[in-house]
């Protein structure tokens, strides 16, 4: 299977400081594969996700990012998104005055370059909202304004399902959610696998969100480096025994 994402020797600093956060990351994701990125707090997991998305808070100082055969290392965020990468944010921001429906419609039209009839769009949107157990009234609400943590995450997965990217980076999408919300979000991710068939890079602390997914590969990130890689069983191992084993072995 050809790789949809290739990260080669990626070094990342904060945009306006000399502090290096990622010290040379190598990571390949095959088309349609499910990858899990785990690691202790402050390891640089979110920085990696954001850097791949072109977040201006970070600066790529070395290495390459290749997506679908094209180098996107220094592309702007909108070009990266249009190329087919989506990121579900850990803390989605509020966008006052812009409704969920309007926002997603604008984004979809922007991506496809085609006008969608309002009626067709709303039908599709409401159908997708049902998968996520979202009340249809959310379509007319301002995006993320006054949403609970769970509602914000559902709104992220709603965008994922509507935008149909080839690669989705989910940054702590399960954090802070109760059992029911995790189940709903998982159902949304399964739907994405089923209908879009895209690849996933899931950044997570917990493993509940992974229960219903077939994980192809696990990466452990600590202190800005990938220190171990393995298959799905690694997730269970970490779940039971924590990171310690891997951290110690990387130091020795």
């Amino acid at each position, binding site marked *: 299977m050809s790789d949809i994402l290739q990260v080669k020797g990626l070094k990342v600093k904060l945009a306006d400081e000399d502090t290096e956060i990622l010290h040379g990351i190598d990571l390949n994701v095959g088309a349609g594969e499910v990858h899990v990125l785990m690691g202790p707090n402050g390891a640089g997991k979110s920085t990696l996700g954001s850097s791949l998305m072109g977040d*201006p808070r970070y600066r790529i100082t070395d290495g390459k990012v290749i997506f679908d055969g094209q180098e996107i290392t220094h592309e702007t965020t*909108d070009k990266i998104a*249009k190329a087919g990468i*989506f990121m579900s*944010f850990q803390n989605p*921001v509020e966008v*006052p*005055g812009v409704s969920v429906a309007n*926002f997603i419609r604008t984004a979809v039209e922007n991506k496809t370059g085609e006008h969608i009839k309002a009626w067709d769009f709303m039908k599709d949107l409401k159908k997708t909202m049902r998968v996520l157990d979202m009340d249809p009234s959310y379509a007319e609400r301002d995006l993320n304004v006054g949403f609970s943590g769970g509602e914000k995450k559902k709104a992220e997965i709603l965008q994922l399902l509507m*935008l149909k990217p080839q690669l989705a980076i989910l940054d702590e999408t399960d954090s802070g959610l109760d059992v029911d919300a995790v189940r709903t979000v998982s159902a949304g991710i399964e739907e994405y696998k089923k209908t879009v068939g895209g690849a996933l890079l899931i950044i997570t602390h917990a493993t509940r969100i992974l229960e219903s997914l077939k994980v192809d590969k696990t990466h452990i990130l600590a202190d800005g480096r990938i220190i171990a890689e393995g298959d799905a069983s690694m997730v269970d191992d970490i779940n039971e025994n924590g990171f310690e084993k891997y951290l110690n072995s990387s130091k020795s």
Partner: protein
Amino acid sequence: MKEKTQVADIDRSMYDFRYSEDDAYKVDEGLTPEIVEQISKEKNDPDWMREFRLKSLEIYNQIPVPNWGPSIEGLDMDHIVTYVRPKDNKMENDWDNVPTDIKDTFEKLGIPQAERKSLAGVGAQYDSELVYHNVKDSVAEKGVVYTDIESALHGPYADMIHDHFMKLVPPTDHKFAALHGAVWSGGSFVYVPKGVHLDFPLQSYFRLNAKGAGQFEHTLIIVDDDAYLHFIEGCSAPKYNVANLHAGCVELFIGKNATLRYSTIENWSKNMYNLNTKRARVDEGGKVEWISGSFGSHVSYLYPMSVLAGKGSRSEFTSVTFAGKGQNLDTGCKVVHAAPDTSSYVNTRSISKDGGISTFRSAVTIAENATGSKSSVSCQSLMLDDISRSDTIPAMDIRTSDADVGHEAKIGRISDEVVFYLMSRGMSEEDARALIVSGFADNVGKELPLEYAVEMNNLIQLEMKGAIG
């Protein structure tokens, strides 16, 4: 976002087209009793109106220019032409009879299309005179009057005009109210009889075509007890290198338990001095709703005022002001609570960009007898760069302890985090910023009828348009 948004000149060509004014009848530049007499004669004023004009001119000459707002030094009254009558002018109620170039102007601005679609009546003013006025038969049958003030001065409503004209905004109010009293021309008179509820809005559109001219239209609206009206005004002008002046006057009388919604999308060209005065008087249980979008003009002084004269009367004021390059827009509102249990709600947004200055000024007065009254003022500002400016000057004068008063002000910038979020969904930086600004102005956008909300959004897109590089 390794690049920064840079702003190119705004393409306003869709508003900037203009036609020759060679054949128009104009008075001389400047302001003298002779010119005022001449305008009065042209308009066939009744005697009282001619005297009113001359008296106003005297007041004008006695009052100094305001010394507290944006500079109006660039406005030289000796060179403003106060009256320009389009050639062959005759007010028409059949669109086909309007002269071709004037008709083209309004066609381009979408006026007749809007009338056909969603309006109960339309008036269109070109320079100093109304060129078109029409109301749907179904509306006229209900006894609704919608005409120009000049016709009304000679018709069955002459006494009503006499009793209301510049009673709410007297010429002594300020220098430009006095100027208006002296040289006013055109505008609209609307009367909605008791209990009549208009389902569709009436609209007036004001277009100033002549270079170096002033527009001084007078809008007088009387909504009788238990009636409802939505009135929309729009305005625009092509850009010239010399100053143009707009000193209109709007007087609204709202009866018991009646409601008037007054919506404005103002898009004067950026050489315009917009010194406009708007005021409403609300009787018991009545309500005025001001919806206002200010985008154009070089300098604006605009503070619509609500006088809550009757018990339980209400005022809502919702506005957005966008000051771009070379613009100094001083806008806000005034509310006088003059009766018990009155309430006012003010919700404004101002945006400044490319060195534009946007000032929000409000004055809320709660009189001693206005017990049990409530007032809530909220103003938010968004500055799009480091060279623009935004000020907030709220004033409150509360004369009773039995009142509930709240004020909230926020000044902010577009957050990089939000721009990144929107770009991560495939929007360019420019589109992301425009969307954030549109969302910010949504307080007004969601109150306007769809077509006008779309027009306002287009104006925002136009203002936000710039090359990235």
